[in-house]
């Protein structure tokens, strides 16, 4: 009901009531609050990742954990080449570029330029879809290589095996360097769940962007007199990008 648009804020002390203390509409405030909550969801997933990886005796040694660079080294149409993390870098670049186009859409919305908003929203949507497609290919390749939720066929590195052996731990597991038997189990499961959960967010973001795009085309925001909806979608989209930076760091770099 009480829709405070920024223009309606009365000229009185910030926190004295009768206006928004942050000069934002309730919708934008709600998006910020939701993102705060969502940040805690992702934090809990990443904390679980950290706990799984660093609190278990057998995976506490970093070298025991499979080396992402040697697993994610494929690139479409370049079979057999060792291109560590190249593909995921392309993915990341696409996602970040889609954030840039989103900023441009928001800025165009401030100028109420419907045409530019449409153009940049289309770019953003394309970026999101490309990212999701890349993720699908990445998952496909990973599964093809033998990744499963309930096991890890990437084995451990030789260094890791030697370390476990030296502390007398290797006897408990039938691990051997090189042979691709079970390594640390949660490796692939964590990858699938956390990147999957992020992918689900990207997917929702794309759906939101498509809806917002259609609303723009049909002139809803023009009639409304402001393009705030683009800003709200943009907040969500940037958040999803920001989360990817963390997911990327944890799963590919460390």
């Amino acid at each position, binding site marked *: 009901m009480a829709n405070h648009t920024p223009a309606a804020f009365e000229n009185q002390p910030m926190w004295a009531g009768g206006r928004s203390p942050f000069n934002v509409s309730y919708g934008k405030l709600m998006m910020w609050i939701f993102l705060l909550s969502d940040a805690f969801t992702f934090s809990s997933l990443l904390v679980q990742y950290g706990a799984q990886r660093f609190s278990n005796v057998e995976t506490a040694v970093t070298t025991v954990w499979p080396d992402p660079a040697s697993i994610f080294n494929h690139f479409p149409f370049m079979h057999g080449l060792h291109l560590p993390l190249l593909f995921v870098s392309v993915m990341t670049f696409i996602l970040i570029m889609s954030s840039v186009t989103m900023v441009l859409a928001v800025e165009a919305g401030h100028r109420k330029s419907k045409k530019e908003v449409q153009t940049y929203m289309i770019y953003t949507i394309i970026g999101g879809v490309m990212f999701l497609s890349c993720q699908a290919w990445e998952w496909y390749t990973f599964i093809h290589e033998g990744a499963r939720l309930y096991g890890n066929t990437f084995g451990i590195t030789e260094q890791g095996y030697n370390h476990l052996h030296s502390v007398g731990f290797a006897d408990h597991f039938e691990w051997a360097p090189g042979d691709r038997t079970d390594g*640390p189990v949660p490796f692939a499961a964590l990858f699938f769940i956390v990147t999957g959960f992020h992918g689900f967010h990207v997917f929702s973001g794309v759906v939101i962007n498509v809806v917002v795009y259609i609303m723009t085309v049909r002139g809803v925001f023009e009639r409304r007199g402001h393009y705030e909806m683009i800003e709200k979608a943009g907040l969500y989209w940037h958040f999803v990008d920001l989360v990817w930076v963390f997911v990327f760091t944890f799963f590919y770099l460390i």
Partner: protein
Amino acid sequence: MSTAALHAEHEAHHEHKESFISKYVFSMDHKMISKQFLITGIIMGMIGMIMSLLFRLQLAWPDDQFSIIEMLLGKWGVDGKLDPNFYMGLVTIHGTIMVFYVLTAGLSGTFSNLLIPLQVGARDMASPFMNMLSYWFFFMSSVVLLISVGVETGPASGGWTVYPPLSALDKAMPGSGLGMTLWLVAIVLFIVSSLLGGINYISTVLNQRTKGMSMNRMPLTIWAFFFTAVLGLLSFPVLLGAGLFLIFDRSFGTSFYLSDIYLEGVGALENIGGSPVLYQHLFWFLGHPEVYIILMPALGITSEVISNNARKPIFGYTAMIISLLGISFLSFIVWGHHMFITGMNPFLGSVFMILTLIIAVPSAVKAFNYLTTLWRGNLRFTPAMLFSIGLVSFFISGGLTGIYLGNAALDIQMHDSYFVVAHFHLVMGSAAIFGMFAGIYHWFPRMYGRMMNNTLGYFHFWITFITAYLVFFPMHFMGLAGVPRRYYQFTLVEDFDVWVDVNKLITVSAIIAGFAQLLFLYNFFISIFRGKKSAQNPWGANTLEWTSPIDVRLHGNWPGELPTVYRGPYEYSRPDREEDFFPQHIPDESAPEVLETEKSKKAPAEKEAEAETSVFFAAVKRVFGLG
């Protein structure tokens, strides 16, 4: 949108007739949604209470047969004896219902919805649509949970905390199958509901306050609901994360929470590498704030009711807010005290212990402020006031045992014993439900325009108050003697057999308490239709909810402009006033209103900053010879 435009819109809105569906079912009026939450909460509360009576019967007379058990439970109560697995299920679902469905959604959902817009002077929640969704997600969640009680293998039975591996392995116990899956579905729906509600509460409090309702003029109820919503918003997502991994463990073969498990002597599965303790960390990161999510709205309601009925300003308004803030903050960093015996590093244990004991400080501030508000007050013992005083009593007696349990060394002895059961049933169970009753008795006129019967209210209070102590106080002694919680039958254990008489006392008291709630139900439902018509401001309260007409239903709360607020909510018995209360919306003729001074009209801070900036730039230009 200006108020005038809103008013016009509202008038236009009011003219067309609302259908039954939009008025009572998919209503977007926060007042109706609060009633929906309340009645659903009451129904869930009755179910939870009946469950507790069933397992109390088992504990008191384990060798007797009760035809009512067979009648109610069918194959779970063959020959009138409660099935052991279903006993576990009852305990689990009783806990889940009471913690989440009654004292979180029922309490917060009802009173946040009713009071936030009315007390801050808003037409409705920031987003009435999301508010409606919040209720219906809660409703679906309740339905799923109740269905889970009826499935063939029984409901989830690993305790309301659903620790793995019991909850993660289908074969661990009968309830770990479909019942557990439905439990998880219900909780996910519940988290969505709580998220939608919480976002709404926070943005309404921040954004929709009426003119003059600065943060330090908000009633303490609103402060409590605000912090509660923040806690829920930040802690429930973590439960969602934990639940997500648990679902994968259950259904997709991962082993995040599973490692080296033997089931019936056989090494269960290939699950290696996981840690059930990790689940406990995540669960209690929600679980501890959750107890304050339950308690804080009750504390807020109590502040309001006690101040109103003592006809005195609340003692230490700012201290009350700061203590709420302190409790909220500390609640996030003390979860480890639920896990002292999980093999936690003793140093970490002592850190958690110290942080836990620090919570006693803000809690004591609240307790003393209640007492000092009562001190030499002009007390008016309405049922709401009695329930509030009851809350203070439970808060103190239950809180003291919290100091015992917060000690790592003592907790190792008392963990998982009846001492814990006694502690949390007093401090968050009874206290919060008394807060809820206080709220219902106090704001019933505001909800339904009628009064509840006082005499029945007094009976309800005294019986409930006495029986609650009779039920939970003896449990302290049982716990100190080492009686563990969640056991099906104590007569089989020689050491615990001596407690059978105490168990009988507890069960009889619980049954009497149950009958007392029937008084309440009768009073509640009859008063909705037949209660005495209430005056506009029956309690002589200062807050804004009593300025919106209570006899007509008005989506938009105030027929004309929104009221303007001129002072804090607790100005009772001011010596310069004839009446002993001074409502927030009435301008004070004798004193100039701060809001309307020249200074504030011009928003001086911004103007000055602007001026300073331009002076600065002029200076810079002069330096570079550009001016």
